[in-house]
């Protein structure tokens, strides 16, 4: 009997909760509405519009000139005769992978060192400064240093090496801007990784020390595995940032040159839309870039989940 009563009670309780939820639903949506409206207006609707444009021929401004173009924009964009796949998309991936690799490697090293230094706040602020500085300032300072008569070439000349056209030689231009992008993004990653380092319990290191492990063993077997969630977050955000970034390239090379050597997908999209008035092609490029970013992010998450890690 008691059991029957408790069963009835168990069935009734969720029903009450559901009823309560139904009553609270409108209020919940009312509170959520500003955020939902923002999300719709600034993300969902432009995204839908971009999809429509990707299948259209439109010169901008006047909707009456919008014409259905089918898949022709995608055909132009993905054609191997064009410049988007090679060199632009290849540059984009090299720029993103290169800057992620350098920034991640650098930030792990810097964060690990900072974690063992006094005045940690000072060092963190110092490395975070490039993140606070504007891209224009960073780009211009590095541009001056890369000039034929700039600081880096002056050092090379002192060492007996001939001047290098860091931004004018198409073989060096992309690596040169990649290094600057990596340098500028180290600060943010250092902040996240030092927080990750602080979360590793000290007792693991003490136990390893008792077992006779050296610094390298401790870094490889304790620090790196336990830093994986923070590292995964850094990798994903840096990679997405790298794929979408183009402001630094505009400042340092002006037009993605020499000869498209530093032209990346986001910059090409901007040029197509705002310079050439080819909004359809620009939107098709945006869709291709969206699919690539989605695929790579899902791949990173899948690899991380296979190893039992999550970013949150």
């Amino acid at each position, binding site marked *: 009997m008691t059991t029957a009563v408790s069963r009835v009670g168990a069935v009734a309780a969720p029903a009450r909760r559901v009823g309560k939820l139904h009553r609270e639903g409108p209020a919940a949506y009312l509170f959520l509405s500003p955020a939902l409206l923002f999300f719709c207006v600034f993300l969902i609707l432009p995204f839908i*519009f971009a999809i429509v444009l990707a299948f259209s021929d439109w010169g901008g401004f006047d909707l009456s*000139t919008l014409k259905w173009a089918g898949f022709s924009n995608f055909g132009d964009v993905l054609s191997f005769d064009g410049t988007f796949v090679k060199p632009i998309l290849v540059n984009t991936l090299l720029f993103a992978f290169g800057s992620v690799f350098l920034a991640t490697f650098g930030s792990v090293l810097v964060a690990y060192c900072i974690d063992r230094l006094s005045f940690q706040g000072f060092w963190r602020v110092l490395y975070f400064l490039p993140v606070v500085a504007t891209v224009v300032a960073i780009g211009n300072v590095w541009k001056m240093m890369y000039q034929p008569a700039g600081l880096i070439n002056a050092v090379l000349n002192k060492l007996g090496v*001939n001047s290098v056209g860091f931004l004018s030689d198409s073989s060096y231009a992309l690596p040169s801007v990649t290094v600057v992008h990596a340098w500028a993004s180290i600060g943010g990653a250092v902040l996240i990784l030092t927080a990750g380092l602080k979360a590793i319990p000290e007792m693991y290191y003490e136990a390893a020390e008792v077992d006779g492990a050296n610094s390298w063993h401790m870094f490889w077997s304790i620090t790196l595995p336990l830093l994986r969630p923070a590292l995964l977050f850094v990798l994903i955000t840096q990679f997405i940032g790298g794929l979408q970034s183009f402001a630094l390239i505009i400042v340092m090379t002006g037009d993605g040159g020499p000869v498209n050597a530093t032209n990346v997908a986001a910059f090409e999209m901007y040029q197509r839309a705002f310079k050439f008035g080819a909004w359809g092609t620009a939107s098709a490029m945006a869709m291709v870039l969206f699919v690539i970013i989605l695929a790579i992010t899902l791949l990173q998450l899948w690899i991380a989940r296979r190893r039992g890690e999550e970013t949150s």
Partner: protein
Amino acid sequence: MRIAKGLRLAVVLGLLATGAACGGGSDSGSGGGKVELTLLSHYSDGPSKDGLDKMISEWNKENPKIQVKAQVVKFDDLLTTLTVRQTGGRGADIVSAYGLWGGQLMKANVVAKVPDDIATKIKAEYSPAALGAVTTGDTLLGYPTELNTYVLFYNKKILAAAGINKPPTTWAELADAAKKTVKRDAKGNIQVEGLSLIQDGDNKSVHPFLSLLDSAGGKFLAPDGTAQFDNEQGKAALKFEGDLAAAKATNTSISPTKQFRSGGVAMAIQAGWWIGSLKTQMKDKYSDVGVTAIPGPTAGSKGSLAYGFFMGVNQRSKHADEAWKFLTWMNEHKTEDGKVTETGKWLADQGLIPPRTADQAEYKKALPDPNLAPIYEAATYAMPEPNQPGAYEAKTALHNAIMTVLADGKNPDDALAQAAKAVKPQ
């Protein structure tokens, strides 16, 4: 049917988000019978701004019911500003634009058709080069304003030190002078560049190349937008440039606008507007500067490129009649002595060629600087820069091709063939 309905819904929703459908009017205003027109231009500083402001304030004083307000941005931001403001429904009533953009602005219904009576007058009174630079197909885009032609600037002292006492008159002489004047230090750093084949700004290698192409009798684009440069003349012009790059007599990393004034460049193919900057920057040393026509492959041949700006009326302006009234006054009213138009004087004072034939003739009578003569002369034979829809993209494709030759040593024939393939008539 359902798909079409969905598509329309998506477009409308998207526009709501992006603001492209915001009103569709310009940001001009009217109240109490008074109309305020906005004029967007790149005349943002120096004599160009002062001269335009002077004309606007004169008009505003004489026409209290039609007031004009100038909005200025730097040239590099002009197209983006124009695009963004137009998209947001806040385009200016009067737009000053680079002729090259004319085709795409016309295709996107940004610039209004010039009224027939005004178009007839413009066609009769302006020079062919100025008209060509601001006409797309048969459509005139507005009043021609700035007109620039390309010429060869040279440093007399550097040429004389290399034993050259007269400016080059053929490609062979030009190449010879470039190779004789180039100087490098032991580390390979360039101290003096022989001949600069680039200019500041967008697609920096194209204008000098097109000037050489013109001198060889070649063309850039056909009226339908197809590439015309992938032929004997184009290959010869690019080979000429490629040979100079291979001989290290030209280098794309040197900026002539920064290095010429200090003797770091012996010769440069540049637009006429540069003369004003050189006078200001070089002061006494300006006497070392010489200007001549860009030589062609054979004796007596020469070439140049003419590009222009125009002022037109926004198709979305609610006060198009008033805007045309102002533009007509601005371009037709004369200076106090009655010899030239105020606009002609404003442009000539900046070292630019006045686009109106009568103004040009008046200034040619007594040029204050002999270096201006070849610049004015070039307006009679220069190739107008094509500006049909797609011309800007074609120019960028050509720029990339030229740079592969100058910076990477690629074969000129292959580079031109690739650029021609990238040109898509619209």
